[in-house]
């Protein structure tokens, strides 16, 4: 069986085009020297993810993890290489992008669901289930501005998981709501995986990755530093971080 996600020789460079008339006329700013500065945001990235598995991605800040997720989601395009997702992709990159504070929870379910690609018919059919999962109860009729951030995140999470996605992209948002809801989300993701759903998880929490993932990769400066079983990946990442700390110490 072919893998559900295929990423082959992907290169991504962020544009250095001028951002305004001033820069067009006066000339571009010279890029600032920093340890994050590099030619390619992603360089020669290749990996595959099998259906029904969870793929973990680790690496320090600014190493290209979020860029990679955006490429998988399709909001940005690679400069070279091929990315193929053989299924519907949904992201938990930002819960509730498109929520409006003045609308009620129920109205926001329709708006957000539609933004995520659901039709009215689907939404009406799933409405009860969405409200039930969010555990908002009667608060669903109140405007979103009265919600706590945890409540809004719960609603966002609940809508996203009803999109019938085959692949879920997760970026550090396993911390939704209180500890009980967190547990429920984790349980949901385990069930999702058991139903042959595919997860791609970016996290700095090694316990989460160990718990959820089977395989993964460790990234460093836009390149894949190590790829394989999740324990190896985490071990590699830890040693990389130590090395990084040492060089930071010595340059002080």
């Amino acid at each position, binding site marked *: 069986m072919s893998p559900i996600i295929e990423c082959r020789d992907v290169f991504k460079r962020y544009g250095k085009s001028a951002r305004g008339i001033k820069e067009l006329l006066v000339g571009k700013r010279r890029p600032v020297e920093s340890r994050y500065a590099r030619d390619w945001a992603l360089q020669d990235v290749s990996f595959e993810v099998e259906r029904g598995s969870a793929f973990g991605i680790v690496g320090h800040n600014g190493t290209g993890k979020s860029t990679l997720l*955006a490429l998988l989601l399709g909001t940005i395009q690679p400069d070279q290489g091929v990315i193929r997702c053989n299924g519907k992709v949904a992201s938990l990159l930002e819960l509730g992008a498109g929520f409006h504070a003045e609308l009620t929870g129920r109205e926001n379910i329709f708006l957000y669901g539609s933004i995520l690609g659901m039709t009215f018919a689907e939404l009406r059919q799933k409405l009860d289930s969405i409200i039930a999962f969010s555990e908002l109860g009667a608060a669903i009729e109140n405007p979103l501005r009265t919600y706590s951030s945890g409540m809004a995140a719960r609603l966002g999470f609940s809508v996203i998981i009803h999109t019938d996605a085959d692949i879920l992209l997760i970026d550090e948002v396993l911390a939704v709501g209180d500890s009980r809801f967190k547990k429920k989300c984790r349980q949901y993701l385990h069930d999702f995986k058991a139903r042959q759903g595919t997860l791609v998880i970016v996290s700095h929490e090694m316990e989460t990755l160990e718990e959820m993932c089977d395989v993964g990769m460790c990234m460093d400066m836009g390149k894949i530093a190590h790829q394989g079983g999740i324990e190896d990946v985490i071990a590699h990442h830890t040693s990389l971080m130590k090395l990084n700390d040492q060089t930071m110490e010595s340059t002080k």
Partner: protein
Amino acid sequence: MMIEHKIRQFFELLYLLVQKELKVRYKSSVLGYLWALANPFAFALVYYIAFKIIMRVQMPNYSIFLLAGMFPWVWMSNSLIQATSSYKNNASLVKKVNLNRAVLPLSNVAHEMVHFFFALPVLAIFIKFAGGDFFLSWVWQIPLMLLLQLFLVYPIALILALANVYVHDVEYLIGIFLSLLFFMTPIVYPITMVPESYRVYFEWSPVYSLITNWRDVLLNGNLDPETYLLAGLMAFTLGGLAAVFYRKASLRMGELL
């Protein structure tokens, strides 16, 4: 099946986005609906004072002449101003969700169109009181004009919104451009006041045929087929341009915002 699903989804999302704008406006302000009327009436009042009372323009029924041009103008300029920053203001939608991005500027144009549509009865009654008349031909003329304006303004809105992602100055330039265009279009004066030799610089613009046709429809129940078709042709060309530009420009949008 897939295509049909996508088209349905596009229009449902458009409907929800427009509904959101309307709900939010009516929920969070006491006057709600009246604001849709206040803008064009206030503009018209300003120009009435300036041109009729101070500068004494000799024109019968100048007030309804002004209003009939002002309402469609306000629809157009409001939607262009909003649409220009629509991608920038919805950066999280562009960056974090894989949705059909063409819908965002369209929702601005469509929601201003709804305001315009709801304001039309009030405008018609005002015209009637000021010496105008109702016309049965509005039944087909007004829908035709609504379509023309929608198909003319949307491509411009889309191009501006995309351009603003690449060059942020567009949202500042649009204000200046619109005030120039406002006086380059016979809204506060009739085209006959423009010297014959200069008229050609005014008449080329699709906005010219849009505004003059609106006024002719609202005041006389007349629609000039020639200028209508010409403007329609320009809308079609602009639509093609916008589609090509959208296909190219929307690819890099996610990383530029």
